[in-house]
């Protein structure tokens, strides 16, 4: 009933169609080596482009129908809300958490050892292996709790830290060959 429902369906239609057409016109021709039908050494086979072409065509068709219908019909189901402020906060929190997770270890290692020992050497030893995960995880968890709770408090921050630590130990203590994030990337 809401105009928002119409707009959302139009957006779904445009995204679906747009993606499909882009894939059909640019991505598939440039990034798949065999055609829809592949003839190689006298065998006629189904090529690698068959599945993407058919699925993109299906998306284009479905998108088109959704689009036309949203323009024609007036009774539409209301759409769920996509809140840009929520998404901005979410993105900021996740980005901050992941950045801290990735960078804390290497930066502290550089400061403490004066750049002599690379983080790669330290990544599997305590306390180094916990630093990035603990800080990044705490920030991420606390950020999201604060986001949904509206009332950040020291108690919640402590809770986030403890929860992160418990998760770290949960994976690290029983399993020798598992690496906590981000240690496998170094």
């Amino acid at each position, binding site marked *: 009933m809401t105009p928002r429902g119409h707009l*959302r*369906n139009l957006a*779904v239609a445009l995204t679906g169609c747009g*993606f499909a057409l882009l894939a059909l016109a640019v*991505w*598939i021709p440039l990034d*798949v*080596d*065999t055609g829809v039908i592949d003839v190689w050494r006298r*065998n*006629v*086979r*189904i*090529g*690698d482009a068959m*599945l*993407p072409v*058919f*699925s*993109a065509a*299906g*998306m284009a068709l*479905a998108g088109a*129908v*959704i689009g036309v*219908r949203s323009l024609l019909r007036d009774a539409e*189901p209301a759409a*769920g*809300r*996509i*809140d840009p402020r*929520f998404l901005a*906060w*979410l993105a900021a929190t996740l980005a901050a958490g*992941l950045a801290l997770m990735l960078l804390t270890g290497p930066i502290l290692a550089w400061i403490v050892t004066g750049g002599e020992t690379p983080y790669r050497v330290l990544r599997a030893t305590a306390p180094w292996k916990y630093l990035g995960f603990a800080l990044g*995880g705490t920030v*991420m*968890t*606390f950020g*999201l*709790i604060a*986001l*949904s*709770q*509206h*009332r950040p408090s020291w108690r*919640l921050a402590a809770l*986030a830290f403890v929860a*992160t630590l418990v*998760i*770290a130990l949960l*994976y690290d203590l*029983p*399993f020798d*060959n598992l*690496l906590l*994030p*981000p*240690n*496998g990337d170094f």
Partner: protein
Amino acid sequence: MGVFDYILAGVFEAFTANPALVLGPLVLSWPVILVALGFFTGVLIGATPGLSGPFVMALALPILISIFGFTPDALLPVLGFLVGVMKGATLGGAVPAILFNTPGTPDAFMTTLDGHPMARNGQGGKALRVAHFASVSGDSFSDIVLFVCAPFLAISIEAFLGLPEKAALMILSLSFVAVVVGKDTWKGLLAACFGLFVASIGTGTDSYPRLSLGSDVLAPGLPTIAVVIGVLVVGEILVSLQEMYLSKRARRAAAEQLAPGDSALSLAERRRLLPFIGVSMSIGTMIGALPGIGTTLAAAMGYTAGRKMHRGTPAFGQGAPEGIAATEAANSAVSGANLIPALSLGIPGNVAAVFIILAADTIGGFNPGPAVFRFSAEEVNPELVVAFALFTLMVVANLLNWLTGAWFMRLLGGLIRIPKQVLLPIVLLLTLTSVYVEGSAMSDVYILLGFGVLGYLMRQSGVPILPFVIAYILAGPLETAIRNAFEASGSDPWFLFSSPVSLLFLALSAAIVLGAGWLRGTPTPDC
């Protein structure tokens, strides 16, 4: 080996092949321990509002694989755990529905209608007993149907369907899922086609990994577990977080806590419930056997059927035990039957089946599909032994459910609840870590979060998730079947339309897409 030998071998495999503890003649095997662990975790999580079975499966799968490794020995413990969770979560959902009027899982909504009034009348314990009795009956019945039907169906499929028919059958299932889940046929098709497209990235038979954009991350294909968990679980978490962010009443409304009270359920009372349970579990089993239709629809249909049958007081909706029984028997009967298409055809019909197929694919050595049920006499078919061992584990879970389920449900009623606002961010970090440790690459985490946002956008725009996930899982087998069918026909462009059976399947697919409005006359199932 005959049929009996296989069943015996399966039972033996489940109980003794992978022992954790040996006390004289008594052997406690890992699969049995894990199925029990899964069951209790499932009840606990199902009883926690805001969480559901798929959350545990998503978190547990990478961890379990890290623990048990990729050997065939890992199959039964991991599959056992997933099956245990599946059964436990359905049962657990009834606890908060009855005691707090907040359904723990979406399919338990109908349980609140009669369960909560009963709890308010001081009959909470009895309501839990009714829910348990109905749930476990429905579950056991559905499992029996699975044990009988899956091998039979698989053997007939294998015997009567050739390559083009199998490909057509997959297309039929996929269109059915796309159309039946969610409110909108075309959005469902959009989601399914998108799932097929995403699955084609980095795969294919040519030496160049198609659609990989020259990237080393995409070249081996997207990490399946990260994609599936991202869309299914992270997307759901984001939606809930936003809901709480937007809701001004940030503090959880203090749930009305009711003491369970009297909990006896006499034999005569149980007998009175039986007709309701019988009808509902048949409905649930039939619904469950069709891919893509969730437990919510089964619960709604069971409840409606029960209301039509019911005479006398209290009326449905005012605290009738029959209402709880009708709902719980129906939604619990779905879970076993859901595995019929998964095990016999390799076509996952719901989220639990998706995780079971995912686990089997990741570990290797067991490929759900018709080939599992080859009763080869001359040589042991190890996959068939695994299948029967899995059935055995389901029986173990059911026995456990009969014996301890009611007690455990009551116990949970008294537990302190953690507010969702705190729980979900922690679950998100847990999911992220769980996905990371399996692949040891941050790129997996980015993919997880990226598909999480996609899942959030799809949910908020009414694009159903399940068709995407099932199409993504089914893309590989479908493409292989179509390639082989085409080549076996001598490169006949009409290979899919050459036999009456495949023609029938394709006609049915088209009819389903076009007749979608009629099919969807009932309330929307969950995803």
